[in-house]
Structures are given as structure tokens and as C-alpha cells.
């Protein structure tokens, strides 16, 4: 339990401090925003304000990789659903972009006093609930089987390559000189924070959607009796509380509905965007942060989800799907509806009717 509470507290503190030292407001850590930055930097989209190789993402994966190798936890595995997870990875980032932030950023927004983030929380919780209904109805992504060790090194290797690109800045890598992409905390600070978060999350199994899922799985009373469930929930609470205190102390707290960073008045679409994230995250065993951590410890299907998230980030920018201060564009609304439709279809197609929760979800539920 202590590990999880420390993980949550560290994410909260480090995220607020990174915002304080230069990251965009309420964006100490945001998997979706940072994926869009990385996609832009690699030339996958042309938004000149969204191009930067974010060291935090590199840190998440490499932190998880290094600690799992050190603790002999690293295991190259596959569930045989790489393409499915690649595809759902795309949908996760689309959903996040509608809300303007991933579940981690949602907590930072709430901790900074943004009351509109509560709508996102409602959507996320609803999505988790729907996802669990499919899990209880026999949804399966396959058994974990060992795959060649080299497969597990691919995503950490990719992140290492990105780190090299970040440090030597070759001419084909583009970095924003203005806009959100140009707002960043000192690189070493972001990298260290990312590495520590990656390592802590790997050791503790921190996952926002996983924590919420446990409330529905066992009900509030049983959750209190289960140490891991209690700890997962406590980690989210410690994340929020520490971020709240840090936001207050650093002057980044502003309670209200209007005029909040990374927000708009498309409340219904924000709700649906996060619903899509919660639903998709449950189907593929974890929120966007969890996918990065799992990829670092050798889960090749999570690696496919990471690549899917990168693809989704490029599509969001190229197709103009993301929400902005003015609201949710038509293209974004259609993407949410189609995305939800596809998730339901996936839920139906991958069900083994008559069965309960599949074994791959019973271990950890991350």
C-alpha cells in the first residue's frame, strides 16, 4: 500500500512542479498531449506549436524498463492481440484529445481547481463501468504467452532512440519555438521525474482506471477489505491531495468553471471523450500511462498500444479532432461517436459468451 501511495504522491508533486518550471498549465504529465508533441516532432503532423520530444514519456518507459530488468520482472509477453491494442490505442488518444487531456491530466486539472474536469471524471467512471460489463460478459484479449525477448526491447529501444534525438537534435527532428510545444521544464528535470514515475508505477501497479474499476468489481465494502484495491484508490487520492497542496503552494490553483486552462464548454463531448477512454482502457488492461509502463516491462501488446497512441496523436492533429477553447469540432464529435461504436463492436466480437472475467484480467487488473 505504501508503494502505491508514494507513487500517487510523487506523480502529484512532480507534475505540479514541472508545470511550475515550464510545462503548460495543468500539464505536468499528460500522455495524450505529450504523444501529440512527440508525433509532431517526428514529422507525423505539421502543427508547428505541438512539436517536442517530451522526456517525461521517455522516462515513463525507460524507468519501468530499468527497474523491471533490475528486479528481474522484465518478461517479454504477448496476448496475441497486438493489432487490437494498436487500434484501441488510437481511440484512447482521440478520446483524450476531446477532453483535452488524459486521465492523469484530469486529476491535475481537478487539483488545480478546474471544476469542468469533474465532468471528465464522470465520463471516465462511466466508461470504466461499461468496460467492466464487457469483462464480466466474457471479453477476452488472450492469454499471456512468452514471446522472444527481443520483442520486449523494441519499445524501450524506441524510447532510447527518442532520447538520443532529444539530446543531439538531428535536423529531421522538429522542435516548436512557440506554442505549447515550446513550453517545457528543464529537460533533465522532466527526464528524472519521468524515470522515477515509470519505476514507481512499475513496482506499484499504479493505474487510474484500474483503481476505479475495483470499486465496481467488488463494491465499496469489499474494496476496503482488499489491500490492493484500497491501495490503488488511496494512490489516486494521494495523487490528488499532493497535487492540490502543491498547486495551492505554487499559486497554480484557481477554483472555478470558467477560464480554466485546456478546457471548453463542450461538457457533453468531454464526458463522452473520457467515457471512450475509460471504456477502451478497461478493454486493453490499463489507461494510457499504464500502457507505457507495461510496454517498458516487456508487454509487447502494450507496446502496440503505445504505437497506436502515437498514431492517434498524429491523426488528432492532422484531422483536427481535438477539443480547443472554442469547443469540440464537428470532426471530433464524429470521431467520438464512431470510436464508441467501434469499442462496442470490439466488445461484442471478442466476447466468449457464458464465461465470466477472463484470467488475463484477474491478475492485477492493471
Amino acid at each position: 500500500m505504501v508503494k502505491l501511495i508514494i507513487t500517487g504522491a510523487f506523480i502529484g508533486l512532480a507534475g505540479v512542479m514541472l508545470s511550475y518550471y515550464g510545462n503548460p498549465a495543468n500539464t505536468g504529465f499528460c500522455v495524450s498531449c505529450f504523444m501529440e508533441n512527440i508525433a509532431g516532432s517526428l514529422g507525423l503532423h505539421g502543427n508547428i506549436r505541438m512539436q517536442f520530444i517530451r522526456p517525461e514519456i521517455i522516462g515513463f518507459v525507460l524507468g519501468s524498463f530499468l527497474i523491471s530488468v533490475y528486479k528481474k520482472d522484465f518478461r517479454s509477453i504477448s496476448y496475441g492481440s497486438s493489432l487490437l491494442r494498436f487500434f484501441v490505442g488510437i481511440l484512447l488518444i482521440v478520446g483524450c484529445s476531446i477532453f483535452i487531456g488524459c486521465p492523469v491530466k484530469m486529476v491535475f486539472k481537478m487539483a488545480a481547481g478546474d471544476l469542468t474536469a469533474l465532468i471528465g471524471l464522470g465520463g471516465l467512471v462511466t466508461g470504466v463501468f461499461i468496460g467492466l460489463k464487457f469483462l464480466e460478459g466474457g471479453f477476452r484479449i488472450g492469454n499471456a504467452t512468452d514471446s522472444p525477448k527481443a520483442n520486449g526491447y523494441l519499445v524501450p529501444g524506441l524510447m532510447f532512440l527518442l532520447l538520443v534525438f532529444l539530446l543531439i537534435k538531428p535536423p529531421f527532428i522538429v522542435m516548436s519555438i512557440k506554442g505549447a510545444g515550446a513550453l517545457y521544464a528543464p529537460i533533465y528535470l522532466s527526464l528524472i521525474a519521468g524515470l522515477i514515475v515509470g519505476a514507481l508505477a512499475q513496482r506499484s501497479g499504479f493505474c487510474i482506471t484500474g483503481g476505479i474499476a475495483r470499486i465496481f468489481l467488488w463494491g465499496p465494502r469489499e474494496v476496503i477489505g482488499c489491500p490492493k484495491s484500497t491501495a490503488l484508490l488511496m494512490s489516486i487520492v494521494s495523487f490528488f491531495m499532493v497535487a492540490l497542496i502543491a498547486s495551492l503552494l505554487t499559486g497554480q490553483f484557481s477554483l472555478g468553471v470558467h477560464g480554466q486552462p485546456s478546457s471548453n464548454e463542450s461538457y457533453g463531448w468531454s464526458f463522452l471523450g473520457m467515457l471512450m477512454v475509460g471504456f477502451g482502457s478497461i478493454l486493453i488492461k490499463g489507461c494510457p500511462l499504464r500502457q507505457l509502463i507495461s510496454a517498458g516491462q516487456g508487454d509487447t501488446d502494450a507496446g502496440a498500444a503505445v504505437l497506436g497512441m502515437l498514431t492517434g496523436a498524429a491523426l488528432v492533429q492532422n484531422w483536427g479532432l481535438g477539443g480547443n477553447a472554442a469547443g469540440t469540432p464537428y470532426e471530433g464529435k464524429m470521431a467520438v461517436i464512431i470510436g464508441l461504436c467501434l469499442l462496442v463492436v470490439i466488445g461484442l466480437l471478442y466476447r466468449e459468451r457464458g464465461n465470466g472475467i477472463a484470467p488475463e484480467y484477474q491478475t492485477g487488473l492493471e
Partner: protein
Amino acid sequence: MDTLDRLSIWAIVVLIITSFVLTGGHRGEAKPKKKQQKIAAADYAVINVEIENKVKVARNLMESNNLEKAAILVKEMIGKFPYEGAPHMVMGDILMRRQEQIRAMPEYKSAVDLNPDYLDKKTPLFQGKKLKVAVNEALDEVEKEMKAHPDSTSMKQSRKLIYYLKRRIAGSCG
């Protein structure tokens, strides 16, 4: 086929119908007419210098309290360069000088929509602090007006616009 299957199929049907409704509504929306203006780089540089010079003149007029003359010059610029943010920014400043905070807001909106650099700390054009003060003053005015006229549609629209500007000033990761 169990309950979850049936519910899923209903959800898909509802989502498909929603997408059709959304598409129907979207097609009915009037789209702003965009003039196809292709300007060569060299021409743009000339235009840029012209705008800069005129903005300078307008600002000098404003500083010397010739607000009417400044406004005439800026209106002419807005007609001539409809896709430039600078004239709108000057017009917003002129209106603020005239204590017309609420009327200044649409001008500031046009300015930051046409040129987001006005809200970008990393560029020399950054005017976020000034805009923040102006927006807060305008919000105070709107709230006063709304107390007197709670059903005023124009004030509600102004407030919506001010909230939009507040969000733009607060920033985003996108």
C-alpha cells in the same frame, strides 16, 4: 444473444442515428466564406512592412489621444487586411482607452484567433498580461450590466466571449 448483446446493439443503433443527426446539423451550418488569397513571400513581406508602419501610426495617434483618427485608420486596415491580427489588437486597445471594455472583446478575440502569438509567452508579440486585465475589466462590466438586465441576450453573448478569451489566456496543451 444475451442482455449485454442486446444493449450493445441498441447502443450502436443510437450512436449511428446520433452521427446522422450530427452530420445533418453540420451540413446545415453556414460556413464562413474564405477568400482564396495566395500571396507570394515577397509580396507578403511588403504587406507586412505596410501593416507594421500603419500600426505604428495608429498607436502614435492613440498615444496622443487622437482616438477617432486612430480608429478610422485601423478600420481601413481591417478592411484591407482581413486576415491580420494586428489591426484588431490596436482597435481593441483604442476601445479600452474609450472605456468601452465590452466592445473591445470581439476585437481582441479576432486578434488572438488570427494571430495566436499574442498569447504565446515565447514570442515578442505576447500581450497576455494586458489582455488578462482587459478581460477582467470587461467581465466586471458585463456582470454589472447583467445585474441590471438579467435577460439581456447581448450581455450573455459578451460573457460567453469573455469566458472564451479567459480560456485562451489560461492556455492549453494543444
